[in-house]
């Protein structure tokens, strides 16, 4: 089966067949600004990663449980790093806000 057949479902070559209705526009339009688009993409990526973890192979065989489960410690350290990073972003945004306020005066 040609891979185009599947795409043709979403992307009609002749848009006339659907009149003004463009499914792509309908799908993308609700998310207007770039930041939320990025956030949604990240969310979907994270969800699919979580999904693939949930379907992990039998215990003792998967990556996270290999080498005495040492990668669990790595994941915990990454989580703490992400937490501190999130705080840096929070502080950065507060500082930026104050800077703009000062510049406006």
């Amino acid at each position, binding site marked *: 089966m040609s891979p185009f057949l599947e795409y043709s479902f979403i992307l009609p070559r002749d848009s006339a067949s659907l009149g003004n209705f463009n499914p792509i526009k309908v799908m993308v339009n609700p998310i207007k600004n770039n930041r939320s688009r990025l956030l949604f993409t990240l969310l979907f990526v994270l969800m699919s990663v979580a999904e693939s973890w949930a379907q992990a192979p039998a215990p003792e065989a998967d990556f996270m449980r290999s080498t005495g489960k*040492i990668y669990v*410690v790595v994941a915990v350290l990454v989580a703490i790093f992400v937490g501190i990073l999130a705080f840096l972003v929070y502080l950065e945004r507060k500082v930026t806000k104050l800077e703009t306020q000062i510049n406006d005066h």
Partner: protein
Amino acid sequence: MKHWWKILSAMLLLYVLTIGLLAPLAPGITLTDTTDARTGRTVKMVVTGYNSSYRSAQEVRAWLELDSTHAVCATAVEALNEQQLELAFQLPNTLPGDKNIVPATLILNNELDGSSVLPDAVFVKRDSLIDSTNVASWTACAVAGLYPNERYDFPFRNILAETIRNLYFHVPMWFGMIFIFTASMIFSVRHLRGGKALDDIRARTFATVGILYGLMGIVTGGIWAQYTWGSFWSFDVKQNMSAIALLIYMAYFVLRGSFEDADKSARIGAVFNIFAFAAMIPLLFIIPRMTASLHPGNGGNPGFGGEDLDNTMRTVFYPAVIGWTLLGFWISQLLYRFEKVQQQLLDRF
């Protein structure tokens, strides 16, 4: 040197990361290929070890132990390699006591590794077909003359394995959170007594960082639990209570945000903050100890020790608690100084 405690925090965390990640685990037993046996028969098994040195060791001995007075020692011990050991045990004709199935603990000992233990390694079943020539006895070969383990290493726990190191990262998040929330509560009391705006900013910034630490504690605990208890959230009493404590602290910010008047927001916020602290104590320290919990040191057994926190681990754990707590105070101080400057600028214009 007013920055000494920040330097101390950085040094301690550097020490914790280095030693906490590099010191090896004590030798342990991961699994055996045989898990059941019958009385009067010979049971053979291949044992897989972790960090073990079965081949290099001169004197490897093995026991199957039912309780403190009943054990048999291996009749044949052969090291296949450093991590694999082939054992044979001749089991006696009968079982002590009147149970028909008894779990036996596998104990290994050699002069390089010291002792390693696998609880419930083999289930011994009473067999009615008795070999009359078998002279093995449960009391002939006691577990004795064990070589000690003198090395600097962390205990090997079967479910935990290397994740025992998370003790230096997950637990200090909660210790740090409690110290930070205590500081926050103290500044709220000071604000109510003196009415100074700066005390309120202190209380607020400490509470923010406390919540950050709590969230990091929840997430790191969830990741740890996923691979040891089997799921990110198992509705363990301590998990639930800490989530409730965090929600109460989040409500502090919701409450503050709902007042237009800054003074009123600060005063009522301070009262709520003291209440939140008072609510956190039973949620984290009392309720989890009253019921069964997956967390060690709960379910009527305050404090944890033994194999969960031995003296080697203490040499890393206590510096970790101090280091992470000081780091939390450092982060809080940055936030406080920023908010103080912001307040001073707003007052000027």
